């Protein structure tokens, strides 16, 4: 039983620094109007972290309302069909609301109450974060407004219905590419005018400090459970861990506990879209450059004038031209390897998992599984690859039929 992984925490475990920086990345590039709210949020987050009753309240919610711990599942038939390392799924799709997003929205809803704020706004792409925010708000009786690109409202309509049923107001965003990036812009603009009484429950590890820190920490339950479950099941840690990266919240939550304490190989999977040409993919780390978007300095897809590129992914949740600053830092230090997975590979993987495992994975998670299979093929039968199955795919069924022209 290895015990060493707690002995030598990586210096990365203490990031971000007091300026909200992960190495060169992160910071706070926002209008002055928002600075006080970000300071207040950071202060409240730190206070809550040191308050045992807060942590206890959150733990009970995660257990009784979300259904944590989420299982770690051996994908036996997939492993046999792949012919390499054992493939295990960390089943975030089995959480209440069907994805990892609820881990962070409950924590942030509790912070909202602690700050005495009375209204919540959120952005959503795939709709999973919107549903998770609407759920947390219904649970606590907070009014909730969700900004969602018009294109995403169309392709993720089951989630739109769920949000409405839980009392959230959906505001379709018709500017720009009408997807996640534009939804973030609109939510930020709302916040500019509502900052005194409203908390913005941001859905990913993006945006200005302290959001990348807060969302990562609340999502880190994924990686902590994976470490615990691996030690119970295998008596050791996995040989590789794989997760998909849009903004990067499920990956940050899965990776951070490993980054902090171990040298387990970590593989993040970006949306490769149709091809590697600008506008045809959403792989900021693979094809982008460091720059500024949505309040933080990180890898971004931009033209030579700093204008944000349009991006494409079949998966609404990965259809974003930026990425969390901590991922940029992990790329720069080489701690995490980032690969890119095309639309067609993800769609084929969705089919494969449906038929071999009886699980409909979200299209986002299908990207991670596709590369998880690739990683398993590179490794021996005694090795273990854990893939974060970040969400369920029911929401994608109609869009998949449409993409296939059915």
């Amino acid at each position: 039983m290895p015990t060493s992984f707690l002995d030598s925490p990586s210096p990365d475990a203490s990031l971000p620094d007091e300026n909200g920086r992960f190495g060169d990345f992160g910071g706070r590039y926002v209008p002055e109007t928002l600075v006080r709210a970000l300071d207040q949020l950071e202060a409240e987050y730190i206070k809550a972290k040191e308050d045992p009753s807060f942590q206890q309240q959150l733990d009970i919610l995660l257990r009784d309302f979300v259904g944590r711990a989420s299982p770690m599942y051996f994908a036996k038939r997939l492993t046999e069909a792949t012919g390499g390392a054992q493939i295990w799924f960390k089943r975030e799709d089995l959480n209440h609301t069907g994805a990892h997003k609820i881990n962070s929205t409950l924590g942030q809803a509790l912070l909202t109450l602690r700050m005495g704020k009375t209204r919540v706004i959120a952005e959503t792409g795939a709709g999973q974060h919107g549903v998770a925010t609407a759920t947390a708000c219904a649970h606590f009786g907070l009014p909730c407004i969700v900004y969602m690109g018009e294109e995403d409202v169309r392709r993720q309509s089951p989630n739109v219905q769920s949000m409405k049923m839980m009392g959230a107001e959906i505001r379709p965003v018709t500017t720009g590419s009408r997807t996640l990036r534009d939804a973030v812009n609109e939510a930020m603009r709302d916040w500019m005018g509502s900052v005194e009484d409203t908390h913005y429950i941001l859905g990913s590890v993006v945006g200005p400090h302290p959001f990348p820190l807060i969302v990562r920490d609340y999502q880190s339950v994924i990686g902590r459970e994976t470490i615990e479950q691996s030690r119970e099941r295998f008596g050791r840690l996995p040989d590789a861990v794989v997760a998909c990266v849009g903004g990067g919240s499920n990956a940050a939550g899965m990776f951070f506990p490993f980054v902090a304490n171990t040298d387990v190989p970590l593989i993040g999977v970006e949306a490769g879209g149709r091809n590697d040409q600008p506008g045809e993919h959403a792989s900021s780390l693979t094809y982008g450059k460091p720059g500024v978007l949505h309040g933080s300095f990180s890898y971004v897809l931009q033209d030579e004038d700093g204008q944000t590129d349009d991006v494409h992914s079949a998966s609404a949740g990965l259809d974003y031209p930026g990425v969390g600053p901590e991922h940029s830092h992990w790329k720069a230090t080489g701690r995490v390897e980032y690969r890119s997975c095309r639309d067609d590979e993800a769609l084929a993987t969705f089919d494969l998992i449906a038929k071999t495992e009886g699980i409909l994975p979200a299209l986002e998670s299908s990207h991670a599984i596709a590369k998880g299979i690739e990683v398993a093929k590179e490794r021996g039968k005694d090795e273990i690859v854990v893939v974060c199955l970040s969400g369920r795919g029911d929401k994608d069924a109609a869009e998949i039929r449409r993409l296939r022209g059915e």
Partner: protein
Amino acid sequence: MSKIDDLFNNLRRNNQKAFMPFVTAGDPDLEFTADLLRTLDAAGCHLVEVGIPYSDPIADGPVIQASYTRALDAGVKLDAILEMLKSVTSGISMPVVTMVSYAIIYRVGIDDYLDKAIAAGVSGAIVPDMPVDESAELAAKCKERDFSLIQLVTPTTPRERAVKIAQQSSGFIYYVSIAGITGERNSLPSDVVENVGWLREQTQLPICVGFGISQPEHAEMLKPVADGMIVGSAIVRRIGAIEDGTSKEGALADVSAFASEMLSTINR
């Protein structure tokens, strides 16, 4: 002494206030923007803010957003904007400052951006997504070049922080009248005069007020405490009318008449 310092010294000597319009570069095209700048100068405007279109302007309301989208859709590029400014600035007397996202400055490179802007006759920059905490490098490089970096104070800024921002700012301080995005408002918050009055006692720098200002009554209200008034959406909306069929000459005449009305209210 920058051109902006000279402007406010002169205004203060004559007990006058500045009227400062905002225009979007390249809406609907750069040739029109050049004509617009000459028109505003001829009308007697004291300083102009030229907005560099950006794809994700989170501090801007629908009117300025739409103008940025029109300009970007028409293919306007930063180099072409600066070339246009170079051809105009030598022939006008009002200083030009750019309103520009740090996303653009970073991508171009701080040194390159500043050198090109100065070569184009630009006197300063307002960077709406760069709070004072992130501005050390840019501020130092602006100072080396005697290029003004105008920083923003808002109603949500704690007073201690406002003093720090005032110390780091140059040219003037941009006081944002409302917690919110740009756009015309019917009325301004009642405490804006008190807040600007307080800030006035903390700094020697001129204080100019923007966001929401769109009517002569607003100018009347701010006159006693502010050194200048910035008007964006009310100008940009009049240009946006071109898209709906107003002639370019008609839009210029409309803007010119509005600027004259504001100027006469401000310095009556």
